[in-house]
């Protein structure tokens, strides 16, 4: 159990974390989300007593970290994969940490096996890749078999196999009743790993709720309904019936209908009563990525701008007007969460979108995060992406 109360950290004039209060409970994986520079790592360091909070306090199991008896046996942490002396071998690094807590040397070989580094145990960590460094850091966290585990961006630099392994490891640790606190900026990863979410932006708490609540609180669920393309009159009929029953119906570019405000069984019943055949009736839930983007849009510190390449332009001879770069009129907002129906200015006029619906989604480069390695939420995201156009 980690408990933060009114945690505030100022570096000179810059406030990194402001009045942050939350609890991290045992038996669940708690995801700690926020854009770059939102104060995640600072908070992690304060939990570990490395940074002193300007005000407020944070305790682990009721004790401030610095007063914990035998801290390595109670709290394991991965803060920075590269925070090892490069000239020391992986095994010796872990051995020096093990000796602090009176952990026998054979436990070192055990955790090296757990993270899959037994073959490079004698090699200097200087030559390790980022992924190997992450594994070494995770090994150090697991060393004391602690009840509380903190991981700062554990999947950075890991290959897909490693990501899957970390995901399962977190879940297993939580299922054993441990407190697992994982920071990440990869939403799709957290959707698969975390049970509970704490979201911060600009050092302030934005959300503290379960993953499920988070998604439904931050996005609109909708049903996609498709009628036979051969019978447009059925489509009009169904639209009328659904609107009459209190639903909102929007057209999608490929001819499907997006229905909100009605449960799936009710839509089916109404269609049956109206004698309309359905080719598709599917529930859609916004992905965590979308919900998160929507929430933190206002709290992003480092936002990229369009690269105008102005500094590379040749001086223009007088009298010659260079062609202006054409910026495609892609609706910026459409890439994020699907806006609640009725409020989307683009949904009603799909023909105006310059990109063909079947084309690969050309996401605006300005807002594109690294593609998430996990496939599942990514697919839903792209699907909605196309739908929104």
């Amino acid at each position, binding site marked *: 159990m980690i408990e933060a109360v009114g945690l505030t950290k100022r570096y000179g004039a810059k406030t990194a974390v402001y009045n942050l209060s939350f609890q991290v409970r045992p038996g669940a994986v708690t995801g700690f989300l926020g854009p770059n520079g939102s104060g995640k790592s600072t908070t992690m360091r304060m939990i570990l007593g490395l940074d002193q909070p300007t005000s407020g306090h944070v305790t682990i199991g009721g004790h401030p970290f610095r007063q914990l008896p035998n801290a390595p046996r109670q709290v394991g942490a991965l803060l920075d994969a590269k925070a090892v*002396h490069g000239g020391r071998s992986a095994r010796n690094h872990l051995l020096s940490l093990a000796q602090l807590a009176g952990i026998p040397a054979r436990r070192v070989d055990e955790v090296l096996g757990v993270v899959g580094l037994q073959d490079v145990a004698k090699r200097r960590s200087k030559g390790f890749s980022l992924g190997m460094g992450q594994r070494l850091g995770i090994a150090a966290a697991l060393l004391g078999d602690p009840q509380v585990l903190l991981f700062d961006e554990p999947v950075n630099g890991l290959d897909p196999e490693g990501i899957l392994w970390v995901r399962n490891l977190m879940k297993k640790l939580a299922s054993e009743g441990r407190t697992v606190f994982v920071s990440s900026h990869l939403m799709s990863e957290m959707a698969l790993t975390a049970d509970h979410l704490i979201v911060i932006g600009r050092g302030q708490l934005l959300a503290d709720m379960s993953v499920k609540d988070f998604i439904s609180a931050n996005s609109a669920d909708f049903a996609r309904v498709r009628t036979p393309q051969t019978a447009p009159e059925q489509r009009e009929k169904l639209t009328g019936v659904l609107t009459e029953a209190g639903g909102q119906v929007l057209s999608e570019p490929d001819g499907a209908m997006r229905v909100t405000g009605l449960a799936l069984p009710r839509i089916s019943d109404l269609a049956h009563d109206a004698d309309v055949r359905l080719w598709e009736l599917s529930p859609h839930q916004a992905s965590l990525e979308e919900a998160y983007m929507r929430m933190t849009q206002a709290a992003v510190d480092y936002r990229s701008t369009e690269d105008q390449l102005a500094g590379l332009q040749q001086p223009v001879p007088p009298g010659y007007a260079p062609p202006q770069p054409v910026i495609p009129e892609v609706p910026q907002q459409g890439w994020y969460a699907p806006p609640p129906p009725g409020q989307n200015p683009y949904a009603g006029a799909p023909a105006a979108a310059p990109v063909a619906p079947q084309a690969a989604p050309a996401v605006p480069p300005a807002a594109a995060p690294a593609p998430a390695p996990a496939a599942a939420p990514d697919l839903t995201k792209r699907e909605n992406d196309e739908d929104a156009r």
Partner: protein
Amino acid sequence: MASVPAVLQSEWTKIRTVSSTSWTLASALLVTVAMSAALCALMKATFDELSPAERATFDPTFISFSGMILGQLAMVVFGVLVVGTEYSSGMIRTSLAAVPQRATFLFSKIAVAAALALVVGLATSFLSFFLGQALLGEHRTTLGADNVLRAVIGGGLYMGLIALFSMGVAAMLRSSMLSLGILVPFFFLISQILSAVPKAKEVAKYFPDQAGAKIMQVVPEALNTEKAPYGPWGGLGIMLIWVAAALVGGYLVIKKRDA
């Protein structure tokens, strides 16, 4: 609480598993012994050219430690790296997450490194002495002579204290490069130059290396050196004050500042 023996054991593992430990300590020993031996041999060859006053105050013990001017720099590097690499690698955060007690962590680390530096320092000192005396031929002295044993053991203490002082400075500055950039020029150039400049040498006398080096002299005014206002043990005491100040400063920094 992380127990002190556990931290000491861990720090011993840390210090013996990096190659910088062996090469800095080995070069401290080799450079000092080799340079001292060379100067002893030179002194024997040119002894007849010395002025009568210089011959009268000839200090065969002190001359056999003359390589320490260069050898102490390797000790400085050793001391700085032991503490500084924790910061430059980021290991400090891992270490302090495992040992939240700042004093236990810092002083265990320093104790292990200082003990090692002292052992190497004493070995250096005795080797330099015996090799130097062998090369001095008829001008030699022996361990049994007045104050000679004190000077030889003092040479080892001096090396250890130089390393200890460097660790304190590195803990204060939290950076290997910065600490080396200050300490190496200080010991190798500034202190040596100022001790030869009139007026400035009145201050330079109280520098840690100038004061501490007096413990190695058997003849107080040997080879034109100035007579100091303190004795050999007084000089070592001055050096100890410097070391204590550096260590207290280093402790306050690690205690107060965010890691």
